[in-house]
């Protein structure tokens, strides 16, 4: 543990970090909506870039912070794409943010790739559960595609998490901004 005196209080750093992550989640969400739909994939199959942000927040701030970022992200979906899309985003987001934060903080079993995959899979399953509740259980027809795609996209976000963390970790240990 670092015993240096910080010139910014922990609370301010927390607020700043949450602000950056929340606004980035809006930008990522908009960016993803610009990408063309992926062939043979069910509606709403996305890369899940926002998961990188909730995973980072979960790691550095904790579960409440990660849930806050998820709420902002889903609130934006509510406003721009309607109640159905918002509910699906919320369910997937909350489930995956709980799973990834617990894996990141409480377990040493999985690497970033696995944590990302777990996040992608749980996100898809949460969404699917809501889709099934809104329509009928027949929606589970999409399950195989969602499992495979959730894994692939999750692995990608896990990779991103690892490399972003290497850079962001410096920031959080104070080297990047407090060392001069």
């Amino acid at each position, binding site marked *: 543990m670092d015993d240096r005196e910080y010139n910014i209080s922990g609370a301010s750093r927390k607020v700043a970090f949450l602000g950056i992550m929340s606004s980035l989640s809006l930008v990522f969400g908009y960016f993803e909506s610009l990408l063309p739909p992926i062939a043979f994939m069910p509606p709403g199959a996305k890369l899940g870039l926002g998961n990188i942000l909730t995973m980072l927040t979960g790691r550095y701030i904790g579960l409440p912070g990660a849930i806050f970022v998820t709420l902002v992200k889903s609130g934006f979906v509510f406003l721009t794409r309607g109640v*159905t899309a918002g509910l699906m985003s919320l369910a997937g987001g909350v489930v995956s943010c709980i799973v990834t934060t617990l894996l990141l903080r409480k377990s040493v*079993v999985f690497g970033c790739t*696995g944590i990302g995959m777990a996040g992608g*899979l749980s996100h898809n399953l949460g969404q699917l559960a809501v889709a099934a509740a809104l329509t009928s*259980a*027949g*929606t589970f027809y999409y399950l*195989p595609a969602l499992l495979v795609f959730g894994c692939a996209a999750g692995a990608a976000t896990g990779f991103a998490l690892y490399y972003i963390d290497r850079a962001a970790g410096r920031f959080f240990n104070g080297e990047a901004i407090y060392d001069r």
Partner: protein
Amino acid sequence: MSAGYYYEMKKLTLFKKSDLLIALAAAAAAVFFLLRLFVPQGGGLTAEISRDGKVIYEKRLSGIADREIYTVGGDIVVVVALYPDSAQIIESQCRDKICVNTGRLTRAGDTAVCLPARVSVTLKGEKASDEPDIVVG
């Protein structure tokens, strides 16, 4: 500012062998559910059309001579065609037309969903028609 504010950060690893377990489990589950879709189901099929999760129309396909058209009204109109051996959403006013592009439903369990209209068309087999495929906690 106390130095103990930040919890002891554990180092992340890019990849661990146990990550493969997650991938394998997901792949196995995917194969399992994919196989279930391809298991041939004999007997009469029943088409079930639901809106907002409630079944609004049910029809035994064997009772259809040539073709039957069923129109689901609402904010977004969805037109379903029922044939003696299959069913298909042939028209929808929704934006992305994913339901129409799903194509013909021919086996029990096949489903076409129009999420914007909250309409789904499912083919049901003779038996176990009301059991959910899966329950996700």
